[in-house]
């Protein structure tokens, strides 16, 4: 596709349930990022992949959050035992391999609501 694709666009889940959020980056982009944006806030970094490996996962809030990118393309963000405080828009971005200054291209986000 032409841009970063995230599915689903909206997800409502009950407290305590498990959810998976999917990100399909721009073809050829080796770097993939997950951010979380709460209402009235700027995006907050969660994790960054370079290829298949998580190069920086320092933003994951706790061990309920996990992300994978097994083939270096699509990534899945997994949240276990969801809590109401996890409600936010989860943003995925990708960037090409040209270097650290390259811009990130964002998807539309997945709005997660935990009830």
């Amino acid at each position: 596709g032409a841009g970063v694709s995230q599915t689903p666009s909206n997800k409502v889940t009950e407290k305590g349930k498990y959810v998976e959020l999917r990100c399909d980056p721009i073809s050829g982009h080796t770097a993939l990022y997950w951010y979380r944006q709460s209402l009235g806030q700027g995006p907050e970094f969660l994790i960054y992949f370079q290829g298949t490996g998580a190069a920086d996962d320092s933003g994951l809030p706790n061990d309920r959050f996990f992300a994978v990118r097994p083939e270096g393309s699509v990534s899945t963000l997994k949240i276990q035992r969801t809590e109401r405080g996890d409600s936010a828009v989860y943003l995925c971005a990708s960037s090409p391999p040209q270097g650290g200054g390259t811009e990130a291209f964002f998807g539309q986000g997945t709005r997660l609501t935990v009830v």
Partner: protein
Amino acid sequence: AQSVSQHNHHVILSEAASLELGCNYSYGGTVNLFWYVQYPGQHLQLLLKYFSGDPLVKGIKGFEAEFIKSKFSFNLRKPSVQWSDTAEYFCAVKGGNNRKLIWGLGTSLAVNP
């Protein structure tokens, strides 16, 4: 720790007015600086970026920003806004060899026709 501060949370302007949105960052080393825009219902899009060289950078849709290293600032400007500029504007910083972006809280701009 790196941080980004955007001075204005909500700005209301009339069409043709000039715009300046403030952004200050906290980081001691080399930085890359970005302004992103989010139009209603759309994803974040890059307006402009600074990596090195001329501190005055020009972006899309008539926007520009000036990097003032001594002030740790990267303010966004547009001489004459349009109704279609109504959006949320975010300043972001990437420091050193880090790949992650540190974001400000955003500024909501409403332009009245």
